[in-house]
């Protein structure tokens, strides 16, 4: 290990958790891990049902699908917000109470969602696309749909509180959000190389996801009114626009919060500086705008949409790939190339995360082409690409931080030597079985599959099993590590 990779550099003193911070951080991470495993098991159940390897009634299948979607999207948001909080608190003074309030509201919301689905029978998918929740055909009540929406509102309020606190703290430190984004250096001037990438990314996420969550809240309130006062009819196209603006924004914010782990940790493991640059600032400023206006690529099959919006959806989908490929992934690869990188769980997971993001974006961008979308929209191509960059991209970012925090800096243990490749192998089998099935037009969200689709489902199930075994090993390892006495770099703050 060279000097820059010493324990002090890996775990700087200003990153140590106080006792209270550690409690809240552990609540986030352990809850997220447990829910991830549970939601993966629900996902496996669906793939097994589609494979004809498990008997699941269609109404139960669609309940599971609803819980899996809402659970995974929410939990990846929860876990990546913990990543952002962990690093951002070094640069600005965040409120621990508000971070805890976000967790409490999330849990209350999660209970409401689970009750709506598994007690109330709600199965309107995580997207709650109007007017499906109001048209259950006798399978769930208006109250169950309302409870589901109330759960979302609770979770949204928690995130919004957190983002407001983030923006408050950033403004207090940097005067305004524009300076935190580094807009003053976009065209000229000497960039302050010590300006944290974490602050730039966090500012972008706080702005954009607050807007996304507000769009979601508007839809939810409109739908709640419609449930109890059906005469207050809604415009299905307007609601669809707002719903996808919210959904797209929320999941993208998760990626942008997660990638902070790469910016912060990768240079510590490579031992090479990873400074801020003008292209970096440009990429985040451009992403701030693009992430808000790219959502029409979800509506390409709604031909009544203004066609300029669909053109915008395609072109911005292409443009959104530029910052990923030319700045973040390229920068990460340049950072580790001939760096003398020391391989262990955090560094391996960080590199995997960059691969998953970059490779997963390929089928996503291709599907962002209108003429391709005509053939691939709502086939299994879609879960193929989003599982690619979530499962092999974003989740490894989160896991990298968790392994880093528990002090997994030594060369891999024997269990890691097995679980890490197993995770990649299972993940690749799982996502490629979706993509291959999408290639032969297998629809997504079908409880019952035709015989010609079963082979892909069975491969998908096998991949999911391998992946879940690896995830269980990871989760066990991390939970034990977190519950042990505080690790590296914590001694000064252990009693907080």
């Amino acid at each position, binding site marked *: 290990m060279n000097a820059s990779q010493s324990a002090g550099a890996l775990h700087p003193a200003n990153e140590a958790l106080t006792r209270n911070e550690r409690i809240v951080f552990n609540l986030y991470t352990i809850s997220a891990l447990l829910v991830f495993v549970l939601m993966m098991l629900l996902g496996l159940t669906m793939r097994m049902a589609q494979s004809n390897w498990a008997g699941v009634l269609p109404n139960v299948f669609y309940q599971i699908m609803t819980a899996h979607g809402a659970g995974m999207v929410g939990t990846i948001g929860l876990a990546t917000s913990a990543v952002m909080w962990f690093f951002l608190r070094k640069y600005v003074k965040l409120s621990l109470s508000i971070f805890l309030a976000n967790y409490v509201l999330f849990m209350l919301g999660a209970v409401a969602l689970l009750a709506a689905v598994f007690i109330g029978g709600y199965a309107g998918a995580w997207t709650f696309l109007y007017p*499906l929740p109001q048209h259950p055909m006798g399978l769930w009540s208006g109250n169950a749909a309302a409870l589901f929406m109330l759960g979302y509102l609770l979770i949204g309020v928690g995130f919004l509180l957190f983002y407001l606190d983030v923006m408050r703290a950033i403004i207090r430190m940097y005067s305004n959000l524009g300076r935190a984004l580094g807009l003053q250096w976009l065209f000229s001037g000497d960039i302050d190389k010590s300006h944290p990438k974490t602050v730039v990314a966090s500012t972008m996420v706080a702005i954009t996801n607050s807007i996304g969550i507000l769009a979601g809240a508007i839809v939810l309130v409109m739908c709640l009114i419609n449930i109890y006062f059906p005469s207050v009819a809604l415009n299905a196209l307007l609601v669809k626009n707002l719903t996808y603006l919210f959904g797209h924004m929320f999941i993208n914010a998760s990626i942008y919060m997660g990638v902070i782990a790469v910016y912060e940790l990768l240079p510590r493991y490579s031992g090479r500086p990873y400074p801020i640059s003008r292209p970096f600032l440009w990429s985040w400023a451009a992403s701030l705008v693009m992430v808000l206006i790219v959502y029409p690529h979800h509506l390409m099959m709604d031909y009544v949409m203004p066609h300029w919006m669909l053109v915008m959806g395609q072109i911005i989908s292409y443009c959104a790939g*530029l910052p990923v490929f030319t700045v973040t992934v390229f920068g990460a690869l340049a950072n580790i190339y001939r760096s003398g990188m020391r391989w262990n769980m955090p560094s391996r997971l960080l590199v995997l995360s960059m691969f998953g993001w970059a490779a997963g974006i390929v089928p996503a961008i291709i599907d962002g082409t209108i003429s391709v979308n005509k053939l691939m929209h709502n086939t299994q191509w879609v879960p193929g690409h989003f599982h690619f960059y979530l499962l092999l991209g974003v989740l490894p970012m989160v896991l990298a931080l968790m392994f880093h925090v528990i002090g997994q800096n030594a060369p891999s243990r024997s269990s890691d030597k097995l679980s890490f490749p197993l995770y990649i192998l299972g993940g690749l089998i799982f996502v490629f079985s979706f993509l291959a099935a999408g290639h032969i037009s297998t629809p997504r969200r079908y409880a019952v599959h035709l015989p010609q689709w079963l082979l892909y489902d069975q491969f998908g199930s096998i991949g999911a099993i391998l992946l879940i075994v690896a995830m269980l090993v990871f989760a066990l390892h991390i939970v034990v590590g977190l519950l042990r006495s505080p690790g590296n770099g914590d001694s000064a703050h252990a009693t907080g």
Partner: protein
Amino acid sequence: MILQNQIWLLTLTGIGLVSLVFIWIIVQAGKPADSAQVQKTAHTIRRWWFLALVLLGVGVAYATLKPFPIADQNASSPAGQIVDVVGRQWSWTLSQNQIKAGVPVQFNVTSLDVNHGFAIYGPNDLIVTQTQAMPGFTNRLHYTFTQPGKYRVMCLEYCGVAHHGMVTEFEVVGGQP
């Protein structure tokens, strides 16, 4: 080559190239070199890489958007056949079940209740085209069938407990078998 296969090949090539770059970088990562020199070279490569991606994006966008792949929703129809399609939980109603090959057809697609996806599967069980069926709106889908045979309509927008069973068929007649 059918479009699905082209998309598949393009995707595998793209993912394959990304994988090769990562494997090469990972293999090289353990051999330390001067950081300043690496960064300088990387910045030069990045400039060209950025330019290549922009040119690729502009070229592909132009090629795939001209002519625009979606029919003008307001212009009067040039189609020789018009089929009205209504989706509801969980069935399709088509105004006719026989369509002539080689003659442009316009599907006027709407829904009576929730969102549905109107996807047409060809005799080879692959999607040939699709649009959404949305309450309160009518999407006009233009297509010219070239191959006769049985075509299947499946719902591609989740619409409730019998979503997977929302299937109907129509026949394309004439043209080259």
